[in-house]
C-alpha cells in the first residue's frame, strides 16, 4: 500500500478504529492487529515477497534466541554469523548480484575477454534494505550483549514489520521500538493531533512539492545533453527539493501515523538543508541510517579512535557503503565518495563536531548572515552531489556537470504563467510551514489548537488544489 493512495485512506482509518475501539486496549490484540495490518500492507504490493519478510523475521528471531541460550562463544559466533550472512546474502542477491556480475563482465571486456553473464530477472523486494537493517541491528545488539533476545514472536515480528516504517524507514532500533510494543498504549489527544498534523505536512511535501518537482527533473534527466546550463541548474535544485520532500514526507507520514497509534518512531530528518557544513548535514539527513552506520560499522571499525589515516579510511568506508546501500550503481558510490571528500577536511581539522546543536538559530527568528552563507554553500555542494545520485549513469552525470560548467546553450524549460504562479504559491507555503515547525521546535511559537487547525486546513486545501495524484511511488522504495 502506498501512503499516497486511496487504499491507504481506507486502510488507516480501519486500523485506527479496530486498534483503539475494538481491541479494547488489550496489548496482545493490539500487537496482533498491527502485525496482520503490516503484513496486509506489504502483501498488497506483492504477496510473494511476504514470505521473504517472514523468513527474515524467523531467522533473526531464532538466531537471537540461540545466541542468548549458548554459553559457548564459538556457537554464539556461529549463530551470529549465520544470521548476518543470510541477511546480507538475500540483500546481496536481490540488490547487488546483477551489479557485481555486470561490473565483472565489463571489467573483463576491458581486457578483450567477452563473457556472457547470467543475470537475475527479478524485481527488488520493496523495503528489503530497511527490514534487513532492522534485523541486523537486533542480532548485533544481542551478540554485543546490549539487549536481551525477544521471546514473544508477535512482538518481534511487529518490530521488524511495523507498517509505517516497513518499506522506507525510519530504521528503528530494538532498544527504542521493542520496549514501546511491550507496554500498554494510552490514547493521548495531543499526541494524535500532532500525528495528524505531521501526516498532512508529509502528504503536502510528497504530492505537492516532490511530485511537482519530479515533472521538471524527469524531463531534464531524460536527456540532459539537450538542455542549456540554466535549465540544468534548475533541474538540479528541483531534485534537491524533490528528494528531500519525497523522503522526509514519507518519514513524516510514517511518524505521524505511528503517533496516532501511540508509538513514537525515531526522527529521520532535522532541517538538513539548514546545515552549515557537510558534517552537520549528515547529522540532519536520514538520521536513522547515518546513526546505524555510525553504530554498527564506523565505531566497530575503530571510528576516530585510531590513527588519522585509519580514521580517514573509516570515514571513506561508511560514506561509500552508505552510497552503495542506496543502490547497485556506480553513481551512488560516487555520490558517497563526494560526500566523503567534502567531509574529510573538516574531519582532519577537527571541526566536524561543530554545530552539534539541534537548532540552527536557537532563540532567534533568523540565522545570522554568516550562517546563511554557510547554509548556501553547503546546499550547493549537496545539490552538486545529488546530480550523481539522480543520474542513470556516471557519464550522464558527467554530461550534466560539464554542460553547467561550460555554460552550454540548449533547450530551455518552458514554464507557463500558471505553472509559475502555482510554484510560487506552493513554495511560499512550504517555506512558511517549515518555519512554523522550526519555530515550534525553537519555542518561539506555541502550537495552539487554532494554529494546528489552521495549518492542517490550509495544507489540505493546497494538497487538493496542487497535488499530483498519479500514484507516484516514493523514491526510497527502490532502496
Amino acid at each position, binding site marked *: 500500500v502506498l501512503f499516497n493512495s486511496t487504499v491507504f485512506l481506507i486502510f488507516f482509518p480501519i486500523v485506527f478504529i479496530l486498534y483503539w475501539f475494538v481491541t479494547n486496549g488489550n496489548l496482545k490484540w493490539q500487537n496482533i492487529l498491527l502485525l496482520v495490518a503490516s503484513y496486509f500492507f506489504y502483501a498488497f504490493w506483492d504477496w510473494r515477497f511476504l514470505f521473504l519478510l517472514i523468513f527474515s523475521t524467523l531467522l533473526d528471531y531464532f538466531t537471537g534466541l540461540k545466541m542468548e541460550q549458548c554459553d559457548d562463544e564459538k556457537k554464539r559466533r556461529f549463530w551470529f554469523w549465520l544470521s548476518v550472512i543470510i541477511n546480507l546474502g538475500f540483500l546481496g542477491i536481490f540488490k547487488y548480484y546483477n551489479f557485481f556480475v555486470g561490473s565483472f563482465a565489463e571489467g573483463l571486456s576491458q581486457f578483450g575477454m567477452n563473457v556472457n553473464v547470467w543475470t537475475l530477472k527479478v524485481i527488488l523486494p520493496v523495503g528489503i534494505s530497511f527490514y534487513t537493517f532492522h534485523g541486523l541491528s537486533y542480532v548485533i545488539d544481542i551478540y554485543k550483549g546490549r539487549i536481551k533476545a525477544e521471546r514473544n514472536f508477535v512482538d518481534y515480528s511487529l518490530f521488524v514489520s511495523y507498517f509505517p516504517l516497513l518499506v522506507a524507514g525510519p530504521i528503528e532500533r530494538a532498544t527504542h521500538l521493542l520496549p514501546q510494543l511491550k507496554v500498554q498504549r494510552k490514547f493521548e489527544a495531543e499526541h494524535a493531533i500532532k500525528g495528524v498534523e505531521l501526516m498532512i505536512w508529509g502528504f503536502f511535501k510528497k504530492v505537492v512539492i516532490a511530485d511537482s518537482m519530479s515533472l521538471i527533473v524527469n524531463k531534464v534527466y531524460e536527456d540532459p545533453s539537450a538542455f542549456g546550463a540554466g535549465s540544468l541548474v534548475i533541474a538540479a535544485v528541483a531534485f534537491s527539493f524533490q528528494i528531500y520532500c519525497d523522503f522526509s514526507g514519507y518519514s513524516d507520514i510514517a511518524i505521524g501515523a505511528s503517533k496516532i497509534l501511540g508509538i513514537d518512531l525515531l526522527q529521520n530528518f532535522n532541517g538538513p538543508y539548514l546545515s552549515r557544513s557537510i558534517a552537520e548535514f549528515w547529522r540532519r539527513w536520514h538520521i536513522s541510517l547515518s546513526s546505524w552506520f555510525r553504530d554498527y560499522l564506523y565505531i566497530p571499525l575503530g571510528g576516530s579512535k585510531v590513527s588519522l589515516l585509519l580514521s580517514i579510511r573509516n570515514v571513506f568506508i561508511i560514506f561509500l557503503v552508505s552510497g552503495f546501500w542506496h543502490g547497485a550503481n556506480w553513481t551512488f558510490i560516487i555520490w558517497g565518495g563526494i560526500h566523503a571528500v567534502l567531509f574529510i577536511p573538516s574531519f582532519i581539522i577537527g571541526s566536524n563536531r561543530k554545530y552539534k546543536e539541534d537548532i540552527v538559530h536557537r532563540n532567534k527568528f533568523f540565522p545570522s548572515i554568516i550562517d546563511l552563507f554557510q547554509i548556501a554553500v553547503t546546499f550547493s555542494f549537496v545539490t552538486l552531489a545529488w546530480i550523481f545520485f539522480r543520474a542513470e549513469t556516471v557519464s550522464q552525470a558527467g554530461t550534466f556537470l560539464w554542460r553547467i560548467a561550460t555554460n552550454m546553450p540548449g533547450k530551455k524549460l518552458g514554464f507557463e*504563467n500558471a505553472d509559475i504562479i502555482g510554484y510560487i504559491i506552493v513554495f511560499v507555503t512550504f517555506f512558511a510551514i517549515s518555519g512554523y515547525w522550526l519555530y515550534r521546535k525553537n519555542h518561539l511559537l506555541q502550537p495552539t489548537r487554532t494554529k494546528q487547525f489552521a495549518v492542517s486546513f490550509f495544507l489540505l486545501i493546497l494538497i487538493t488544489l496542487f497535488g499530483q495524484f498519479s500514484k507516484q511511488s516514493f523514491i526510497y522504495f527502490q532502496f
Partner: protein
Amino acid sequence: MTKFLNFFVLLLLAFIVANFLYLFILPRIDWDFSKTKEAHSFKNQKLKVLVFGNSTAMDGVNTEMLSDKLGPAYNFSLGGASLKTNYIQLKNYLQQNEVPEKVLLFLSSAHTNYVSANDVNPIVNYYYGNTFHIKKLDDIPLFKFRWLFVENVKKLLSSKHRSAEVIKGQLNIKSIVPDQSFYKKNIDTCLGYNYSGSTGYEYLWKMAMLCKEKNIAVEIFEMPCWKEAQNNCADTTIENTVGNSTYHLLIRNFNNYRICNTLLDPQRDWLSKNHLNHYGSIKLTAALQQKLLNSPLGQK
C-alpha cells in the same frame, strides 16, 4: 479521544465547507464557469452563428465582430474543451433553441491533444449533467475545478486580467505577450494533421452529421499558433463513409505560417503561448469573415 475526534471532524467539516464555498464562488468570478452557466441557460435563442473550440477559440474568435456581419453569434468555446465537450454543448443548444445558420468549429491540433482528448470539460459536465455527484475523490469541487484556482489568482495579480471581459462568449483580453519562438527547422515540409488517428475524430463527425441533419452550415478551421507550432500545410479535406454515402469536410488551416505571417503581428497579437489577445482576435475574425462571406452557403 473526544478532543482528537473533535479536531478531526472539524477539520473534515471545514474542508467540506471550503469545497462548497469554492463551488459557490466560481460561477461568480470565473469566466469559464459564468459563461457555461449562461450558455446552458439559453432557451428559445435565435443565434445565427455558434462558435465552438477550446481556449484558443475562446480568446481568439471575436463574436461581437461576427455578430455585426453575420447575425447574432455566441462563442461556446471553453478552456480545455474536447470535441466531445463541444458536441454536448451543440446538442444541448439545438434541443432548446432555434436552429442556427452556421456552426464554426475551431481546432488547435498543432498545440494540444485537443482532437485526441475525449474527456468532457468538468464545467460542462457540472452544468449539462444537471446533477452533482461525488462518487470518487476526483469529484471533490476543489479538485475537479482546481486549474481554475490559478486562473483566478491571475486576476489578483494582473490588472489586464481583471479588466478582461466575456462578450458574447469571447474572452476579450488586451494583455500582450510577444511570440519570441522560432519556426521549426522543417517548417516547409507539411507533416499534416492526423485527424483520423485521433479519438476525438468520432465527435468531429458527430458534430458534422448533427449539423447536416438540421441543415446547418459547418465550417472548420485550425487556429493559428505561435511560430514554433506553425506549419506549411494547405487546407485539408477529410472524408467519412456512413452506409452507402461518403461525406467530405474541408478544414481550413489558419496555422499555415504564410497566412499567420500576413495576418498577425508576433509582437502585439498574442496573449500567451498559442492564444490570441484582443488585437489578434480582431485580425483573425476579419479574415474569417472574409472567408465566410466568400462562401455564404458553407458545407452542408
